[in-house]
Structure formats: structure tokens, C-alpha cells
């Protein structure tokens, strides 16, 4: 016997479970919280160890020195480093009604990071049944990212930099959480291996119609050889915003900040 069942989408009425309303409220909370943010920029690579967080932190500081109100959301939940890079201590975060106050780093950069919440040296471990944890762990990390966006009192910012971990998973989560995928600043090192990995990340961002702001080539004039920065810039028709030497100076970052401003 074959039943003539209606499909999921044919049942259009509300079922009093409240789930669609809660999901909508979550999205609304993120949107409202970020209403005071002028520009949201995802710093991503697709390749680990290229210095994304290092570039993000120094770019944020340069922007702050130039008089901009800047925040950094450390979206690397499992390997957070931003508090150390921004000189943030582990003072308890105030929790006024409805929001968590971000930490304040050097040059006044606001910062939120899982590092501020975890015990020293402890991995990010969740409560719950550990069997088949792969099923829910990704959902929990996406929820953490959503709460970092929507529950932190970012206030009025000229720019909020999102420091993404290697890979493209977190970028896709951002694309789902935000009304539109954020513009992307890409970091690579000169090597062809990095170029190949970063290319995939840029392609993923482009496929979701995220604006590509440009490429930063890090760790040049050192041990690494190659032309990844120029190659990727040409391939995606975006500017090569900066080539960061092994020993950058404040001027290096100031110039990148200016370049980024002119690429908007």
C-alpha cells in the first residue's frame, strides 16, 4: 500500500512548535546587534599558518590608530589567538542586561574570542553525549559564532573584522547567519601550495557572491618563494593590497589600512 502523503512544503501552516519564530528571532538579533557596524570584513585564507590572525590584529590596530572604531571577532573557536595578539587580558567580561561587553585591546580595539572564555590551555569541549558528537558539534560552533555576533555589545563601529580559521566552513556559517555574505579579505603566503588552497577559499566566497576586497601576501622576502599574491589577484581581478615582509613596521600596517579603505 502506498500512502498519498503531502510533502513538507505543502504543510504551510504553523504547528505551534515555535521553531521558525525562534530562528527568525536569532537572525533578527544578529542584524540588530550589527546595525551600528559600518563595515563587516571576513579575513580568510583557506590555508592554515599564513598569518591571518597576525594580519587581522595589526590591521585592526592600524585602523584604530587612524581614528576608526574597530572590533575583531575571533571566529577561530578551536585555536583562538586574538586576545594575545591584541594584548587583551582575561578580566571577567561584564554582562549588562541583554549583552556581553567585549574586551578592549591595545589601541582601543574591541575583541571577542573563545580564548576569553576557556580555561587556560583547555580545548573547546562541549557538554553532551560524546558518541556521534560530529553530528552536533558543527551546529554548536555555528551557534557560538551566532552568539558572538548577536550577543556581544559591539556598539558603533566603523569596522568589525572577522578572523576566520583555516578552511571555508566558518565562512559558509557566516553567510548563513548574515543577511548577505560579508566582504572578504584574503591572506596568503607566496608559495604555490598556499595559492592552490587559497584559490579554493576565494572561489567559495565568490560562489556565494561575497565581494572580494583583495589579497594580502604575508611573509614575503623570507624563506618562502612564489608569486601567490600576484597570481590570485590577477586570477580574481582584485588588488594585491599589500606584501607584508617578515619584519613589518607600523608603516606597513598603516599602508594596508589605507589600501583597504580605498578598496571599499
Amino acid at each position: 500500500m502506498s500512502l498519498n502523503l503531502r510533502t513538507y512544503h505543502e504543510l504551510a501552516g504553523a504547528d505551534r512548535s515555535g521553531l521558525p519564530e525562534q530562528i527568525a528571532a536569532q537572525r533578527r538579533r544578529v542584524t540588530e546587534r550589527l546595525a551600528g557596524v559600518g563595515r563587516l570584513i571576513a579575513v580568510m585564507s583557506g590555508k592554515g599558518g599564513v598569518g591571518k590572525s597576525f594580519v587581522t590584529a595589526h590591521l585592526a590596530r592600524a585602523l584604530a590608530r587612524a581614528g576608526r572604531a574597530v572590533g575583531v571577532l575571533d571566529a577561530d573557536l578551536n585555536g583562538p589567538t586574538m586576545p594575545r595578539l591584541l594584548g587583551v587580558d582575561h578580566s571577567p567580561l561584564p554582562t549588562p542586561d541583554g549583552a556581553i561587553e567585549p574586551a578592549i585591546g591595545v589601541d582601543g580595539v574591541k575583541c571577542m574570542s573563545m580564548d576569553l572564555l576557556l580555561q587556560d590551555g583547555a580545548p573547546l569541549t562541549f557538554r553532551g553525549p560524546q558518541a556521534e558528537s560530529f553530528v552536533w558539534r558543527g551546529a554548536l560552533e555555528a551557534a557560538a559564532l551566532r552568539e558572538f555576533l548577536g550577543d556581544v555589545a559591539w556598539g558603533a563601529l566603523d569596522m568589525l573584522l572577522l578572523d576566520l580559521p583555516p578552511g571555508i566552513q566558518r565562512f559558509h556559517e557566516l553567510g548563513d547567519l548574515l543577511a548577505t555574505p560579508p566582504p572578504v579579505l584574503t591572506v596568503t603566503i607566496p608559495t604555490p601550495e598556499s595559492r592552490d588552497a587559497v584559490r579554493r577559499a576565494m572561489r567559495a566566497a565568490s560562489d556565494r557572491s561575497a565581494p572580494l576586497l583583495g589579497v594580502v601576501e604575508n611573509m614575503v622576502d623570507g624563506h618562502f618563494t612564489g608569486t601567490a599574491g600576484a597570481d590570485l589577484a590577477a586570477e580574481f581581478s582584485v588588488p594585491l593590497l599589500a606584501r607584508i615582509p617578515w619584519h613589518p613596521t607600523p608603516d606597513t600596517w598603516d599602508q594596508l589600512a589605507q589600501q583597504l579603505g580605498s578598496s571599499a
Partner: protein
Amino acid sequence: MKFLCVACDRQMLFEERQLPGDGTLAAAFKCPACGRVVALLTNPMETQLVASLGVVIGGRTVPAQPLETVRGMVATGRDDAFTDNGQRKTENAPMWSPEAQERLQRVPSFVRGMVKKVYTDYARQHGIPEITPAVMDTARAELGLEAM
């Protein structure tokens, strides 16, 4: 996820949620036409997945707290990650019985402040002058606070 009463060809409506406290969840749905009731029973992993989404089947009776999922789910959080400084003091706050205070102290301090606020808000909304372990159990079941 939706439930269809095949006999009536009608969408079933959420009726009641129960949290037995063993990590499982039961949610009952009722057909508005014939009254037939079915129950969705989830195992701990499935319950965790629902909680991971930051939603409560049947809807919330209290607003989501800031970083609620992170504070409720992270097992390796530092005890001094948050301070209650800045929280607005309110009049007519319910009392906490010694037993309830003792139970609250067993909650990891990483999440204790948020948990205390949830129970306090629940008591205030229900006109409960004193929070006892029984009140906490009732609130926990009603609000779907499986992780608290």
C-alpha cells in the same frame, strides 16, 4: 520537522514537551481534527542537536540569554569569564532557599550567573516569592533547560 495526521490529512500541532532529565526529550503533537496524539522521542544525541540550534521545541517562555548556548554548553569554560557587574538590580527579587542556593552553587560558575537569572526571572513572572529546588525542577521542565 512537521507531523501529518495521515487519516485526516491535517498538520498536527505541538501540544506539550517533557524533559525526563536523562538527556532525552519528548514532544507531543495533536491532530486538530481527530485529536490523535503522537509523541516525538529523541535520544540524547538528537536532544543535543536540537539544543545546539539554540531553540526550544514549543517555544520559549523566557527570552534567550546572552551567550546562552556557549555558557550552557561549553564544558571547559573558565570560572571567572564573566562578571555580573552591570546587571540591573531589581525590586522584589525572589528569595533563594538554602537548599536552592546549595544547588545553585553546584552549577559551574562559568554559567551560574546566567542560570540564576533564568530562575529568578521565572519566579518573578510566576509570582513565586521563594525559589526552592522544586521550583527549579518545574522551571527547568517548563522552560526546556535540559543543559541547566
